[in-house]
């Protein structure tokens, strides 16, 4: 890649530049700032779109009473039962049970507290879902 070809496409990194290695006019390698590259942006946005779809599907399931609010909070943090379990110190099967509304409503406050602390929300927030799915998807700064 030549220095003049270092892509300066849309930026996904909130205005921050990354550095690339490129060859200058004398054939020497230099560090060149790049604001972003479209193919990389496409792949990044594709990954976020998938997360957004997954969160939306879980959100709908919670609204219909098929899953507990914990399932929504878990999906929002891109976690699965195994990962969430390793954070709160529970085996995967117990987290999976807690995704069932009937089980979740009977959880002890201490356990709810553990989930809430990890997810940086209050217990009250943990037991509900917001009006609409809240997920920060990166935006493109042109």
């Amino acid at each position, binding site marked *: *890649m030549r220095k003049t070809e270092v892509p300066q496409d849309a930026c*996904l*990194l*909130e205005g*921050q*530049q*990354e*550095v*690339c*290695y*490129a*060859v200058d006019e004398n*054939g*020497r*390698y230099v*560090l060149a700032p*790049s604001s972003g*590259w*479209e*193919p*990389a942006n*496409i*792949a*990044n946005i*594709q*990954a*976020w779109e*998938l997360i957004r779809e997954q969160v939306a599907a879980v959100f709908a399931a919670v609204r219909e009473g098929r899953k507990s609010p914990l399932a929504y909070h878990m999906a929002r*943090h*891109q*976690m*699965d039962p195994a*990962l969430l379990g*390793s*954070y709160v110190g529970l085996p995967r099967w117990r987290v999976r049970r807690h995704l069932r509304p009937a089980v979740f409503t009977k959880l002890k406050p201490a356990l709810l507290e553990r989930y809430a602390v990890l997810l940086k929300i209050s217990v009250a927030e943990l037991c509900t879902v917001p009006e609409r799915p809240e997920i*920060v*998807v*990166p935006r493109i700064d042109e």
Partner: protein
Amino acid sequence: MNIDFPHRQSAHCESGVTANLLTHGGIKISEAMAFGIGSGLFFGYVPFLKMGGLPLITFRGAPGCIFRKAARRLGVEMAQEKFRRPERAREALDRLLAAGVPVGAQTGAYWLPYFPAALRFHFNGHNLVVCGREGGDYIISDPVFPGLVRCPAEDLDRARFSKGALAPKGRLYHLRRLPDQIDLGAAALAGIRDVCRIMLKTPVPFAGIRGMHLLARKLERWPAKLGDSQAALHLGHMIRMQEEIGTGGGGFRFIYAAFLQETAALLGRPELQLLSERMTAAGDRWRSFAVGGARICKGRPLPEDTYEALARRLRACAEEERQIYSDLQEVAR
């Protein structure tokens, strides 16, 4: 308590941390040099190791390797520690900082509050240097950022104890003792030999050139086996591993070419300069793979963008690199 630390923005986190820590210790080397001496270049495709349903595809060695290998080849004594309890991990960090030692740390990316939202994934192979503390905040030299950043202590604790694959377990590392003399040239050649060995003579089919061919074979069959949308997700995943921030472009091939160029000048070996140029061409070919792949991901492929064509291009990358590594091996012998 702030250490005067020579922060330089880098393309890749671990080679940046390694170069900056060594420079602070008195061995002034560039990021590319640290990457090459630490033999950071790699290719791996492990279809049965899944993260979020997607196969492991990597263009670099395991986290921690670059620093460890670079230190060993330069004769630098390093220290590293893992922890079970966050309180202990924080005490150890504070103790080192109080002694004026900048400390490398492996962390997860997800919990670092200063990370842009676009990069907040559960990825545990991130590296940074903690170089000070002011009240409840740590001062951090994160090599992929332009300047020093601040991070609240609780958030750093979380990031150091992120869970999942390759969990960092609070890992800290620092330089303990530097040698009286260093032989940069010999270290660079040792790094080159290591890369050639792993790329050409791997015993497993997932790594090196064999890994690229395995991926090419699988990639051809993705649309038939997985369906169009899953195939596009797999392709996007591969492009992210290759091009997302932290590779310097072209799946680390450009940073490696920069290393070869520097070594050519250091040792007065013009043949390494030619190999650097060929490595640049290989990087450009990987980039063109990403361009075509991204068009498929976006659902706007040109007539020539098919999975078969991508597989062909991947095989061309593999064969081109096979030649480069066998020639490199001769030079570094």
